[in-house]
């Protein structure tokens, strides 16, 4: 099934005629289709997962909805394509999806060699380890000889090998296709340790039978800037992706939320808020979008803080702190270029 998908995607790359790729921009394609095609994960609590009604929810999903809101003014004009870590890049390369929002780490080789453009970082993460509490392990440096469950096709796989190699330790990798299967193998005791990005560990622990029986080790062994990405070669589409994210961050900086956005639109004296919400300037037109694009995002999806707290924040089962993902003025490193 997964293999077929890769094959189909490869065939699609082959079959796409050169003419169509150059003639029509991604934005025009999306508009004429009336729907954004967004690649998400096959199910990761808090980030992208269908709820009981079958509606996709989560941090990564909300970014897709924000892009749809910016283009169509309607956050529901998105078709979600679940992809495994392994399939995701082929799906984007082949044009099966317009944008990939699937906790994907920004690395040089992905940016350059795979032919992608990362539009920004929406979650600053790092790789961690989870282990059963009763093993009595308190540091990742004690993991010599452990078997480790990992999801295939991730930067995690490479970091893990690097970490054990640099600490002169050995491990047995148990490489599994999706993060849910990896978690199940870990719960069944096939491996001692489960490793992925710290946010993913929190998400998987929340879905376990007894979350309190597992601890996340203090070491963070890598930098994992997660963000949405698009194909090389359509700069306007990349700009849209980048500024949708920036609009959500700027909205938080300026205190614009989904609840007060109408009021801010009419009464705010802050020039940046006015430009953001399309009261002044022609920011939308520059991007090829309606002028109230950012207003639509904030109204229907919310600003960065709302999206974070709703999906993964401290009040959710994942219980993630803002940490590095707080605004620069609150001690984090989240920073948007100005709307000007």
């Amino acid at each position, binding site marked *: 099934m997964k293999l077929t998908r890769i094959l189909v995607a490869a065939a699609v790359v082959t079959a796409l005629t*050169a003419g169509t790729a150059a003639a029509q921009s991604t934005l025009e394609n999306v508009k004429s289709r009336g729907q954004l095609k967004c690649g998400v994960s096959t199910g990761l609590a808090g980030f992208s997962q269908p709820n009981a009604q079958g509606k996709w929810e989560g941090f990564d999903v909300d970014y897709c909805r924000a892009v749809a809101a910016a283009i169509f003014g309607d956050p529901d004009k998105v078709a979600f394509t679940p992809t495994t870590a392994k399939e995701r890049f082929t799906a984007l390369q082949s044009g099966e999806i317009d944008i990939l929002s699937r906790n994907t780490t920004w690395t040089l080789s992905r940016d350059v*060699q795979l032919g992608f453009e990362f539009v920004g970082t929406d979650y600053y993460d790092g790789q961690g380890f989870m282990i059963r509490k009763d093993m009595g392990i308190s540091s990742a440096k004690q993991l010599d000889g452990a078997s480790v469950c990992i999801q295939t096709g991730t930067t995690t796989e490479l970091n893990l090998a690097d970490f054990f190699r640099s600490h002169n330790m050995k491990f047995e*990798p148990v490489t599994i*296709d999706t993060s849910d299967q990896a978690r199940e193998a870990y719960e*069944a005791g096939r491996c001692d340790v489960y490793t992925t990005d710290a946010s993913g560990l929190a998400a998987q622990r929340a879905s376990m039978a007894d979350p309190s029986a597992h601890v996340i080790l203090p070491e963070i062994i890598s930098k994992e800037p997660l963000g949405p990405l698009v194909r*090389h070669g359509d700069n306007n589409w990349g700009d849209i992706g980048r500024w949708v994210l920036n609009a959500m961050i700027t909205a938080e900086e300026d205190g614009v939320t989904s609840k007060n956005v109408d009021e801010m639109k009419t009464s705010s004296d802050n020039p940046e808020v006015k430009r953001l919400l399309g009261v002044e300037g022609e920011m939308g037109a520059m991007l090829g979008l309606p002028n109230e694009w950012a207003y639509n995002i904030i109204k229907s999806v919310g600003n960065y803080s709302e999206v974070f707290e709703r999906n993964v924040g401290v009040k959710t089962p994942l219980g993630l702190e803002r940490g590095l993902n707080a605004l620069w003025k609150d001690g984090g490193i989240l920073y948007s270029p100005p709307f000007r």
Partner: protein
Amino acid sequence: MAVDLAERAKLGSSLWTDQRFRGLLLQALTIGLAGTFLAFIVHNTAHNLAERGIASGFGFLDVQAGYELKNTLISYGPTNTHGRAFLVGLLNTLLVAGVGVVLATVIGFILGVLRLSPNWLLSKAVYCYIEVVRNIPLLLQIYFWYAVMISLPQVRNAMDLGIGAYISNRGLQAPAPILEPGFSIVPVALLVGILIAIGLSRWAHKRQEATGQRFPSFWINVGLIVLLPVVAYLGAGRPMSFDVPKLGAFSFRGGFTITPEFVALLLALSLYTAAFIAEIVRAGILSVSHGQTEAAYALGLKPRWTMRLIIIPQALRVIVPPLTSQYLNLTKNSSLGVAIGYAELVATLSGITLNQTGQAVECIALTMAVYLTISLMISFVMNIYNRRIALVER
């Protein structure tokens, strides 16, 4: 009227009405069209890849892989290249396919013969087995066996087999032999034993053909092949020790491991394929007419000899061609091992390597080429065997 005929004759000699020429033209056109289509696909793919800024070529095989694999037949680490990881995957594919083919054949033959057993219960039990196993998708069976493996006792409560071997859901851990200097005499003794055994069988065969006297070469040969190495081993002062697995902080250290992924895949592949082979064997045996059996009995051959000397050789020529297809199926089905994380070709080359390098077209093309080569080689060998056992008409 005469003019008409003359004109027709003229037309008949024109190129278009010439059947041979027309045939050639159409074939040339077909080949030309197919060639153009292929060239278009290749050109278009290359163009699109270049346009999307995706590097192409097989240079990635020389790049450091950076990921770890478990249970490799050759030494492998993250500093090795993608090419080496590809080799690891290829060897793992060949391993599971090779062992699977042998196991499936043995189980399949036994089941096929039992299916024809006069014992009602036995025959019906095998019938049920075959119908259940071959009608359930293989992928589900792989998941099933993997679930069974995973629900074995946890590593801390591993089953102790007594001889230093342990079974847990991390697989089978057994003592690994360590060869010490002086061990080389043992394989030499084995080789000598086998050579003598072959010579002896030939001599016995000739003698039987010449004089009709039988010589109990089978048991003598078994003795030769087993005893000679044992004597050599003891004579050289037991030049072998064992690396016994010990429970470490996390799991067993030392010894060798057979992973649950390998066992699950092997079981699923062989049991599934054995069900098909059993039916092929049954059909083969039934294809030999009952008159042959009766004739053999009339000559005074025992039932076991009748089976071995009369029925099986004639059944084989019916069995072998479809058996080849089953071997091919088993080999290709081993690619499903990716579903449970067995590090075979699809998991390494068109799995991790594809993902880390993004060279989808190259990786998939290379994987397909490898499967094609393996399959053609199996067909080649089986065709040679098939020619040897074919009925020779004199």
